[in-house]
């Protein structure tokens, strides 16, 4: 069953990495409902991206390692629902 998931990725801030992530979702026809990407204030060589995705749990399980295998990606995690996405936004605004 499809539902909302929060998916957060931490990565090096390099050209193309956001495209790689988005491609991975598009390729599997995963709907991106919301996207926030941001440079790390302290270290602009790194950054993170938060997504609200509408898909199945099985798809989340399969797409996570596909994203983690991108060279610049440090790690990713996901959880059901949108609450984690708003916590992530809040954290970003505190850091800023």
């Amino acid at each position, binding site marked *: 069953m499809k539902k909302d998931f929060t998916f957060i990725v931490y990565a090096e801030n390099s050209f*193309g990495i956001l*495209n*790689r992530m988005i*491609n991975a979702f598009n390729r599997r026809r995963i709907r991106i409902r919301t996207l926030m990407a941001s440079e790390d204030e302290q270290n602009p060589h790194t950054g993170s991206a938060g997504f609200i995705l509408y898909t199945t749990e099985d798809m989340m*399980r399969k797409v996570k*390692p596909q994203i983690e*295998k991108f*060279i610049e*990606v440090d790690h990713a995690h996901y959880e059901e629902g949108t609450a984690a996405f708003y916590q992530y936004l809040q954290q970003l605004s505190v850091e800023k």
Partner: protein
Amino acid sequence: MQQKAALQMKTDRLDSELPITGAEALIRSLIAESVDTIFGYPGGAIMPVYDALYLYGQRLNHILTRHEQGAIHAAQGYARASGKVGVVFVTSGPGATNLVTGLADAMIDSTPVVCITGQVASHLLGTDAFQETDVMNITIPVTKWSVQITRAEDIPAAVAKAFYIARTGRPGPVLIDITKDAQFGKAPFHYEPCHGLRTYHPKPQLNMEAVRAAAELINQSARPYILAGQGVLLSGAVEALKALAEKADIPVANTLLGLSSFPADHPLYVGFLGMHGNYSTNRNTNECDLLIAVGMRFDDRVTGDVSKYARQAKIIHIELDEAEINKIIKADVAVHADAKEALEALLPLVKPNRHSEWIASFRRYQQEEFEKIVSKDWFPATGLIKMGEVVHQLSELTQGQAIIVTDVGQHQMVTSRYYAFKRPRTHITSGGLGTMGFALPAAMGAALGAPHEQVIAIIGDGGFQMTLQELGTISQYHIPVKILVLNNSFLGMVRQWQQLFHESRYSFTEMVNPDFVKLLEAYGIPAARVTERDHLRDALQEFLSAPAPRFLEVKVEKEDNVFPMVPAGAAVSDMILEV
């Protein structure tokens, strides 16, 4: 450690305090990476690099192919035969876009190549300047990593990173796009090989708990079955696999890309998997009680209907790429590891065993397949020559020792079935992408990557005509490949499907071909044609013993089919021996 020190010494000698151009820095970086061969095609945006290359002609062998697709397939063939990284130079715009098929092929078949594309000057990026194309975005989905360089001083580090990424972990293609101003720009040169990256961990820590769980399943199993993929070759696990199979007496089958990872004459070798694989290997997938998948990814051509695939069995999946684990087939025990490391760790934990009755069940299916199909393919009494007898005789005459490069189609499946590969890395084909036109350039690359081996390209008349301009390259550089075209005047594999699944409506699959022998003569490559069975063996013998390059066309039966077959969407156990 010693290797590292030697590399450092070599790179020290290349270092220069005096600024050198970015183009020369690229060439020196490649020398520091021990590159000896480059396949490429020049053009405006990469001219500074070619100019620098001119000065280093003694140290780097550049092969001018006749098309950029030929260059990347050649680099793939070079990489697959040698175990080294293939290198490609092309210009911007159409040069870069002509790489795309090869990148996709290398990506899906885990082949390490580093492609250097020239790019317009950085101030012209995004302006639709002449031959400017957004190569970065075009190639993102088909590269393991890519980077655009706009400053000369960034070139050495980018090259170091590119080689490290291409060859480590699950290998793959990498692209470096270098703007023309970066090629012309100057900077002092210092080369530092890359040995690690913060966010990239190519070799996972072996989880001994998973290894112990796998050993336990193997020790308990009455009908264990090993499926060996290309990961075995890539990780150098051939001996470790043999040791494990022999100790626990486990039959071994190969995926398409895994062919040559287990000797075909070994008593535990049971054959080739998948849609046009062997009868026993597919049938017994649904009869084993334990499937041990090593360095393979359960491609749909292997699994058929996933919902009916090995449901009765426990599954052990040994795989380096975590994204492949549980992607298609759920593993009961997943060993996320390098195949060699995992197999070596398993070996002492696995008990010696015997599975004679289980292995005999493969032999019974093999006998059935031999009677119904193989004997007719190898020893037909009447009709035109069959692909099966050509490949069988070639296998006998070369004793399974040649490097065989196949294209895509019926001849590819027939070769996979009937060539008895005896040594690792002797089978090169386009597996995942199924790229027609792959074989001729890939064979060129293989011949340069493994100069002491006999390299034979086996190609259909359709695929041959997709990249035959590379005959010019073969002729110019006297590249010692043997080219065997099995000509059925059809796009054979598509015609077979039309016959079986579209009521013989041969919609645009018949081909009117040129006189290939005359064509080869125009390229200055000695060529012959054989049309009759009585002359086949002599023709093959002459083809093999004559100096390379050499060409042989075999006119084969036009409407022959490759059997057995798992019809698309069917279960592996529903493989059909005939219609």
